[in-house]
Structure formats: C-alpha cells, structure tokens
C-alpha cells in the first residue's frame, strides 16, 4: 500500500498523532487481515472498532441469522436485519462505517475441514464464538497455522480474555486442557449476559488485535484477564505453557484437526448435577 490519501490522513488523524502508531502504523493497519469468529456479542464490538481503525481486510465467520434476542448486545446488527445472515449484516455495517475496509463474509460453520483454509488468509484471529467445540477448534487451528489469536469468553456479568501467540506462550489447551463437562457451564441463552459486558470484553479484544498488528505494548500472552462487571474489577492470573499440552506441547498428540462435534468420549455418569447447593 502506498502513501495515505488526504482523506485517510484526516480519517485516521487521531491514530497518526500517536507516536506509537503514526503514518507507518496506520498503513500497517490498512494492510492487516483479521478474522472474526462470530459476529455476535463479542464479534460486534471487535468488528466495529477494527473497521473504524482501518483494518484493511476483515473476515467474518458466522452461519447464524439475526434474531431479535441478539439485538440487546450484538451492535453490528439492527432491527431491519432480522432474519438476515449475520455475516452479511456485519459486512454492510462495517463497510458503511469505513469504505477503506473490505469485509469478507464466510457464511459457514467453522469445521475441521474448512478451518485451516479459512484461517490461512488472515494475520490475526479474534475468537468470539458461542460454543466450546469451536473454541477448541479455533485454538488448535491457530496453533497449527501459527496465527496469533485473541480469545475471550463472557457469561452474565463476567468475562475472560487472553492472547495466544503460538510458539511464544501458552495456548487455550494449556489453560483448559479439556472442555467443561455437560452441565457445568450454562449458556448465555440459559443464564443471560449483560449486553455491555460483551462490549467491554470485545473492546479489550479489539485493543489486543490492534496492538498485535502495530507491534506495540505488551500482549496479554501468558496472562488470563478476568473481568467482573458487578464488582467492576479486573484480575490477572499468570498462565504458563504446558510442555505436555496435546496441541502446542513438546510432543503434540493433536497434529490434525478433528470433528469436535462428533464422537464425544465423555465417560458415563460424568455430567455435572445442576442442582443448587443449599
């Protein structure tokens, strides 16, 4: 990409004024390619702010359509988008915000068959997916493809965030070797989510992605950030790479992606009772 146009200099002037960004940093953003996994509660704030920042290519993987219950937090979509594919609604919103941005919709569910192919076109991945099968798949694919990954999860008034730099720190499996058993972690659909919590955590993700592209600051690698909106607290936990990790360890057992939604090997009787303890 050549020099910034006069219009771009004006649009991105508040970035360019930052010595840590400058014209060179803004050109790096315009050349960058970021993949959003999900255009929901997390993907919406990530996508809006990356588009506004001038990230040149934004891929959006989402196979869902916009539902009324999404609109309390999924600010990429509006009432007029009800029933439309989220990735198309997201594309229109982000490209309207900033015509410098090319949004590539992937109206598919991420699978073991397509994940590496889709991810290979991008520099950084931001995971805002809505289920653990996808989260483990995205982690494994990013480790195998050596792509930086911003991971975030939300529920009720809480959020978690970490940045995964394959080969340079722990991955999601180092942190959580296995998905939780059935019944342990309810869904937002079951127990709710304060919409603004998704916004806070999503914007932390967007900040991490911009820092990674610009090569500035300290990435949230090797650290898990815990956000509690009710307490309005942030807590940080150090995490280490596990040499025995099945995907990024010294002798990885997982060397190709598998169909995470098939062949559950959970042991009989290992479901968690949801009965509330008195």
């Amino acid at each position, binding site marked *: 990409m050549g020099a910034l146009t006069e219009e771009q200099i004006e649009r991105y002037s508040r970035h360019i004024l930052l010595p840590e960004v400058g014209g060179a940093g803004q050109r790096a953003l315009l050349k960058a390619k970021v993949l959003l996994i*999900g255009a*929901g*509660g997390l993907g919406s704030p990530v996508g809006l702010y990356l588009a506004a920042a001038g990230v040149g290519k934004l891929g959006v993987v989402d196979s869902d359509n916009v539902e009324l219950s999404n609109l309390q937090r999924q600010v990429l979509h509006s009432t007029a988008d009800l029933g439309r594919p989220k990735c198309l609604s997201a594309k229109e919103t982000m490209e309207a915000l900033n015509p410098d941005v090319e949004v590539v919709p992937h109206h598919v569910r991420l699978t073991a068959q397509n994940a590496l192919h889709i991810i290979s076109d991008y520099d950084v991945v931001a995971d805002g*997916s*809505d*289920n*653990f*099968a996808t*989260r*483990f798949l995205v982690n494994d694919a990013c480790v195998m493809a050596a792509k930086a990954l911003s991971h975030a*999860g*939300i*529920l*009720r008034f*809480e*959020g*978690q965030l970490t940045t995964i730099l394959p080969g340079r720190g722990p991955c999601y499996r180092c*942190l*959580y*070797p*296995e*998905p*939780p*058993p*059935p019944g*342990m*972690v*309810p*869904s*937002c*659909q079951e*127990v709710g*989510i304060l919409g603004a919590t*998704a916004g806070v955590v999503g914007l932390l993700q967007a900040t991490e992605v911009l820092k990674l592209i610009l090569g500035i600051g300290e990435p949230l690698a090797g650290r*898990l950030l815990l956000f509690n909106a009710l307490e309005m607290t942030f*807590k940080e*936990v*150090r*995490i*280490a790479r596990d040499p025995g990790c*099945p995907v990024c360890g010294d002798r990885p*057992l997982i060397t190709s992606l*598998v*169909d*995470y*939604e*098939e*062949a*559950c*090997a959970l*042991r*009989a009787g*290992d*479901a*968690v*009772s*949801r*009965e*509330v*303890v008195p």
Partner: protein
Amino acid sequence: MTTEPTNITLRLFGPLVTALGRKEIGLAWAEGTVREALLSFVEEHGASARSFLFDSHGDLWKSLIVLVNDEPVGDLQTTPVRAGDTISILLPLAGGSEASIATVGRF
C-alpha cells in the same frame, strides 16, 4: 505448622458461583494439601458440589483452574494450604452458547 483449625477461603468464579450459591466460602482448616481442602469442601456441601469439582474417578475436572493466593497450582496433591490462604477456582466461559457442551470431544 499449627494444628489448630483456622479458616481458609474458597473463592468461586463464573457459573460456579451460581451453582454453589456463594462467591466465597470459608472452610475450617488445620493443615493439608489443596486436594485435601477441596475434598473437605465437597464433603461439607454434598454430591452436587462434588460433581462440579471432581469427575467420577475422583480426579479434579481438567477444565478447572485452581489458584492458591492467585498463583496457579501445579500439583494439587503436594501443594500445601495454610491458614489465611485463598483457593480460587476458575472455569472457561464461551459466549451465547446454544451448542451442547456434551458434543465436544476429549483428548
């Protein structure tokens, strides 16, 4: 090390707070390891609490992170818990999940 019972604190995060009813739980404690403290907790709080922390083989779920005084615990069986310590238990969050968690494979 004292053998007089003193209190340690079990601090829960995310869905564990909802499931177990409280964010912080005090536990009378003399001395022992993290695993012993967690077993003591589930003995006091019943089968439901046990199923949230331990699988049917009696192993802590691998989807849980255990911290003592905010530091990750490597080995539950050897890491000591002392008077005044706080044990924190974290578990992963996804998003607006509609997919069944039971469909995720283990490795």
